[in-house]
């Protein structure tokens, strides 16, 4: 008798999470919880100014503080060829500044001491003399012919421009615009934001001179990439480097890059021959580590009177800070920005992009986003909103006309992506029904009588999740596949390891469910480990919603390899030929004689005790999975807000999310991901942004200035599902971790705009703080977050 899949914690079970058992007891093991014998502590001195030449650094007083073991400056790093390191986008980044500081918060010196308090004291005794230079805080200033050159360290870098890039068919797009009845335009700013996981970054480097082995505990989402990078930067052989990423207190893209602090702690351990712990404080995290967004999005739609989109043009100007350190696939200079409009049937499209250096922290990380997809979809849905208004069409009708229809798959987008499945129209219908779209107009009227303004906003989108395939996607030349290794022990229990790295997504729970689904081994009998490069198979890590699409697929594939071998063993045990064997969950049996069978556990025991002749003993294997395509989840988000015209304050009355992420492995965890993502979407729409004054001072360097929503502000969300299995993923799943963050912001913004656009205003840039909304209501004018930056 086949097993009941839900009972063994297989696919579709809302299995309670195994990792929770330690977290709820306060027994998680985050980097800062790790204590090694003889460990020293490191603190970093950061630049107080955004742009300045370093005239001198005097560390004498710091050395005199009792308990100080080592003081490092750019000069000491340079002597070991470590003052600069490569970024993930083929640029270089200063580890400790030698010539200039290029953003406020840049690493200038480091102190290693007996305890963190002493290290901090000693840092404050380091005297740095700066000669200040004008700060460039936006791309407009960066383009000024008289602007100071930020990257004067680079040969062949005469201006502050990093790249020009384009994709699409310009001529076909121009033709579409020539034929258009209506042309609609938007001009938007997606402000700089910081992923801000609650746990900041940190590392403990432990170099053992006797063995030559370097072990580093590190807050990283991609341990194997880090191992390769450390090997390159520190010139240590790769087999002598072990990166351990223990429990992570969130990541959201912030923990993908290599940070100077990691590198400095490694050198400090090599020099002191003691373990060196570096735990960044929150201000350090917010002002120096990978930010997201900060891009200006301009575009146009060519439209026919009946609502059909004929063509799309887009131009982006992105601000990358002082070092081009975007974490993204090599081929694409502005990430997957060209995934914009993938959900709509657009015959012609053209995208041009320019990127600039400024005196701000480097980054451009995929903040809960598949490489700039958040910006792409925000642009798309704000553009759709504006175009429907310009046409005088209903928002839902306009989308229905243009969404890719179910029978059009596989569909090649104007920029060349291949979307393969979905029920876009159905998702939209479910969302509209749930929010009560039909009766909204009456509700709006009724609210007006109360002096309140109601608005409704729609955002529908599909996004590319789960890079590779490896033909197109690599980081620093390393192909984007992933891996899983499964070892089934003789009692039928198992250990699974993957090249991904959970940061709260619950891999320890869901991966076991995939194995349970494939092999019928109860999920509770499978332990999952990730994050140790000495034990896990090589993988690219977890970001861009790639775990389930890539590593999750590898888990299914390795389980299938195990099953294939178990089948041979079963045939031997049942004394029939392999062809006469049937499989049902957890068990092989003889075709035509269901009673005669052996369980997967019987096969596991036999693999170690009764192996047929000619078969290798053991039941272990590894699989590397290179996906044939990205996965394309779809989402329809609809938001209803009430705006108080007296104050500009807006409240979410209802938010409906319909997600189609294919087959759901653990519905409880999927819903948790969606709610978390929606909250970040709400955060960006309403309050969360990092800005700078004209001197380049970061306004938003701590949680008093950088506002994150609490339980009190955060609205409730109503979730619905539609399931269209992914045609190429072994278990039909698609990525989900980021859909809500990507598609959510436009739903909030469109709703608020819908409530106030009777005044003539077309756009208010995020975040929609009450003062901005109020200003728009009073003036009927757009409120822009673009430069020139006001000094307020």
């Amino acid at each position, binding site marked *: 008798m086949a097993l009941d899949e839900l009972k063994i914690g297989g696919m579709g079970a809302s299995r309670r999470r195994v990792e929770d058992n330690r977290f709820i007891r306060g027994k998680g093991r985050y980097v800062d919880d790790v204590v090694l014998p003889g460990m020293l502590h490191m603190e970093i001195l950061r630049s107080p100014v955004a742009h300045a030449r370093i005239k001198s650094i005097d560390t004498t007083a710091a050395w005199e503080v009792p308990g100080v073991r080592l003081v490092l400056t750019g000069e000491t790093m340079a002597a070991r060829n470590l003052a600069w390191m490569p970024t993930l986008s083929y640029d270089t980044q200063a580890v400790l500044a030698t010539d200039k500081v290029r953003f406020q918060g840049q690493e200038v010196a480091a102190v290693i001491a007996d305890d963190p308090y002493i290290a901090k004291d000693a840092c404050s005794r380091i005297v740095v003399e700066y000669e200040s230079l004008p700060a460039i805080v936006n791309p407009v200033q960066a383009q000024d012919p008289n602007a100071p050159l930020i990257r004067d360290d680079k040969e062949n870098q005469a201006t502050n421009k990093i790249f020009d890039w384009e994709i699409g068919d310009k001529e076909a797009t121009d033709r579409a615009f020539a034929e258009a009845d209506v042309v609609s335009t938007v001009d938007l700013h997606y402000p700089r934001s910081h992923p801000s996981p609650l746990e900041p970054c940190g590392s403990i480097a432990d170099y053992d001179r006797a063995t030559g082995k370097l072990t580093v505990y590190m807050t990283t989402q991609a341990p194997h990439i880090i191992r390769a990078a450390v090997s390159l930067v520190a010139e240590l052989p790769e087999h002598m480097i072990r990166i351990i990423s223990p429990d992570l207190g969130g990541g959201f893209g912030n923990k993908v890059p290599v940070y100077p602090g990691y590198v400095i702690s490694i050198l400090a351990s090599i020099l002191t021959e003691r373990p060196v712990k570096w735990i960044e404080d929150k201000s350090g995290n917010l002002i120096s580590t990978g930010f997201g967004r900060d891009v200006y999005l301009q575009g146009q739609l060519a439209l026919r009177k009946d609502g059909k989109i004929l063509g799309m043009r887009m131009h982006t100007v992105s601000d990358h800070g002082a070092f081009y350190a975007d974490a993204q696939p090599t081929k694409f200079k502005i990430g997957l920005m060209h995934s914009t409009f993938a959900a709509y049937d657009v015959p012609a499209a053209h995208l041009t992009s320019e990127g600039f250096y400024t005196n701000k922290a480097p980054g451009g990380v995929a903040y809960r986003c598949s490489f700039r997809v958040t910006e792409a979809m925000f642009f798309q849905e704000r553009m759709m909103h504006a175009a429907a208004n310009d046409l005088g069409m209903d928002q839902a009708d306009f989308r229905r006309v243009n969404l890719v229809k179910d029978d059009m798959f596989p569909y090649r987008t104007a920029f060349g992506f291949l979307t393969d499945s979905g029920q876009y129209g159905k998702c939209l219908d479910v969302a509209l029904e749930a929010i009560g779209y039909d009766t909204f107009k009456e509700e709006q009227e009724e609210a007006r009588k109360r002096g309140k303004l109601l608005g409704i906003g729609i955002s529908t989108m599909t996004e590319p999740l789960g890079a590779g395939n490896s033909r197109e996607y690599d980081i620093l030349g390393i192909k984007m596949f992933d891996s899983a290794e499964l070892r089934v022990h003789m009692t039928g229990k198992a250990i699974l390891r993957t090249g991904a790295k959970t940061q709260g997504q619950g891999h320890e729970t869901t991966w076991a469910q995939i194995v349970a689904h494939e092999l019928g081994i109860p999920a509770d009998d499978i332990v999952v480990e990730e994050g140790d490069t000495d034990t896990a198979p090589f993988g690219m890590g977890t970001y861009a919603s790639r775990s389930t699409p890539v590593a999750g697929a590898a888990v299914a594939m390795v389980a299938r390899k195990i099953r294939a071998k178990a089948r041979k063993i079963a045939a031997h045990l049942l004394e029939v030929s392999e062809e006469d064997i049937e499989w049902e969950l957890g068990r092989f049996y003889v075709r035509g004689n269901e009673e005669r069978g052996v369980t997967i556990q019987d096969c596991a025991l036999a693999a170690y005790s009764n192996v047929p002749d000619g078969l290798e003993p053991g039941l272990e294997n590894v699989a590397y999975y290179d996906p044939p395509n990205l996965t394309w989840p779809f989402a329809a988000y609809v938001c209803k807000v009430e705006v108080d015209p007296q104050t500009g304050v807006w409240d979410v009355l209802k938010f409906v999310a319909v997600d189609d992420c294919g087959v759901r492995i653990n519905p409880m965890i999927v819903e948790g991901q969606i709610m978390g993502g929606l909250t970040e979407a709400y955060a960006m729409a309403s309050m969360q942004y990092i800005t700078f004054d004209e001197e380049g001072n970061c306004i938003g360097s701590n949680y008093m200035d950088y506002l994150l929503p609490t*339980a009190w502000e955060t609205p409730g969300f109503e979730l619905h599902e539609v399931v269209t299995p992914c045609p190429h993923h072994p278990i039909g799943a698609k990525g989900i971790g980021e859909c809500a963050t990507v598609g959510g912001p436009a739903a909030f913004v469109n709703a608020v705009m819908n409530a106030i656009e009777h005044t003539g205003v077309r756009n208010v840039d995020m975040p929609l703080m009450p003062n901005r909304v109020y200003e728009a209501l009073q003036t009927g004018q757009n409120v822009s977050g673009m430069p020139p930056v006001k000094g307020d």
Partner: protein
Amino acid sequence: MTSLYEEVPAEVPANVPTRRVTVTVNGEKRTVDVEPRLLLAHMLRQALQLTGTHTGCDTTNCGACTVLFDGRPIKSCTMLAVQADGHDVETVEGLATASELHPIQEGFKQEHGLQCGYCTPGMMMASKALLERNPNPTEDEIRWALSGNLCRCTGYQNIVKSVMWAAEKMRAEEAE
């Protein structure tokens, strides 16, 4: 000195004052010599190895370090260890007994009230303080009581449900 050996630093830092504090932590009296500037959070984490209390900010905003101080929730990153002398501190490690989870812990697991787990100890301690003074809170009361604690993963909705779950279980246990 309690260990058999204790290495004395070659250069004993002059005039670093220390003070002896005795704090009841999770029901047990603990005595530590501390510098007066040591934060309570760091004493718990480093001197007592109670690493369940996390720190997530420098500005008393995140609540990851929330513990109960004489039964009231406080942010242990904003209190000096010396201020805790003679007081009672309860941390996440004190919630469960060897054999049994506290209903709040069960609630967080059952209702998926955590993802990365970093905010969780603070959230649970703040929830405990709430349920002790209000055994039957409304959703709004829970959201307000937890508004000093940030979570970046869950979106709070499931945290609210977790607290509701725990409240119900605690009321049922009370009734028995």
